[in-house]
């Protein structure tokens, strides 16, 4: 049950990040399989059933451009970021940065200015504030 909840939340979290990763990777031209391998080499595995529909959606939205070209005697569809895609990518990167900064601030332990009755004497923290590791557990 818990695993299923985690899996759903993980997929939800991944969805936005994958778009960002694909847009960022396509600053240089790639065909589908090469893009998958490139993302995988950076530690972001993406299955083909997610990648190809995503590429088509991003192209329909005008964020990517594509064309068929022969390479190694085989026809391959190459994608790259469109000018509009570049603008959106940097906007999304800023948004992502802001989000991470906010989360870092939220997760940072808040030291109590005064040691109140509910303060943990070992950590010096208010009872509701946990260390990041404790929260993850």
């Amino acid at each position, binding site marked *: 049950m818990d695993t299923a909840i985690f899996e759903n939340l993980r997929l939800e979290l991944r969805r936005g990040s994958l778009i960002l990763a694909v847009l960022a990777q396509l600053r240089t031209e790639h*065909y*589908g*399989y090469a893009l*998958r391998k490139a993302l995988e080499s950076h530690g972001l595995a993406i*299955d*083909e*059933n*997610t990648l*190809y*529909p995503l590429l*088509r959606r991003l192209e329909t939205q005008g964020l990517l451009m594509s064309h*068929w070209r022969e390479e190694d005697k*085989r*026809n*391959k*569809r190459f994608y790259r970021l469109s000018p509009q895609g570049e603008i959106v990518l940097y906007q999304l990167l800023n948004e992502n940065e802001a989000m991470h900064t906010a989360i870092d601030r939220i997760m940072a332990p808040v030291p109590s200015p005064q040691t109140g009755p509910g303060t943990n004497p070992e950590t010096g923290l208010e009872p509701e504030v946990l260390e990041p590791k404790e929260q993850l557990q």
Partner: protein
Amino acid sequence: MTASQTQSPSKDLVARYLQAVGFWLPRGQKQDILAELSEDLRSQIEDRESDLGRAMTESEVSDLLKQRGRPIMVAAQFLPQRSLIGPALYPVYIFVLKIVALCYVIPWLLVWFGILLFHRTETAAHLSGEWHSLGTLWTVVFTQFGIITLVFAAIDRVSVKTPCVSDWDPRKLPKLKVETTTKRRVNAFAGLIFGIFGLLWLLAIPNYPFLIIGPAAYFLKGAPIWQTVYWPIVVLSIASIFEQLVILIRPQLTWFPPTFRIATTLLAAWIVNALLHTQTYVLPANQDVAGLAGILNICILICAGIWGVTLVVGLVIYIYKAFREIRRTSQPAAPHLA
């Protein structure tokens, strides 16, 4: 010799897989998507064969395809997301279905059950007729639900293009409902006063029948059925006064009124049942007013029928409210909005 017989079993498997995916794809994009998927599969197989240092077997290719998923699921990823009713309208759709269920299906079922219970028909023909009427209910219910679904699907298609979805004014929202204990007490006090007057009026009727039928009391008299139902009606009236008193003293017992009304509604249902079985409520003092008595009897019968239907609807509402209040009071209190 067919095309599949000329190529290796692995290639044949891939071609069959792509054909199966293509079956579900939109015609306009089919070739393009299949060409790209084919290229991806080919690259992956080549990579794997390069790692293995040999050609992949049919079984290995089969595993790889299985890992990619069923053809219909793969194709579905390329199709636009389709839902009959979108998330914006879905709560309204469910709300309408609940109203239909509450105002039509549940009363119908209760009436049907009541008829089954009170008539106690044991002949096969009667039972068959009642089961047939239940079958008719389901047909009507499914038709109603189907029509509602279609109407909402149509509204969903249209509303996406209309500005009414985003054009709304928060200032036009209904006022906050805050039912305070004071308000409950005021209502209970008013109910108590009216209840006492009602009881006095009821107790006076046997001696002063003109209080209920006016001047007609001189030439019409009550049928024996009133002797049967009079005291239950008085008990009902006293119960109503008791309920108002409890609310006045303990307005915070929100579960009490609906729970108590379930019992009083059942008593009222017994009275209605007795009235519906009689059909003679007033008797003429002489033959000259027999026609008038007949009309009055029909009017009272219709009123009893309407009362019966409202009791059934009321019973459903009280059961729902009692269940909701009991569940609410058993949970920790939520903070008030205002």
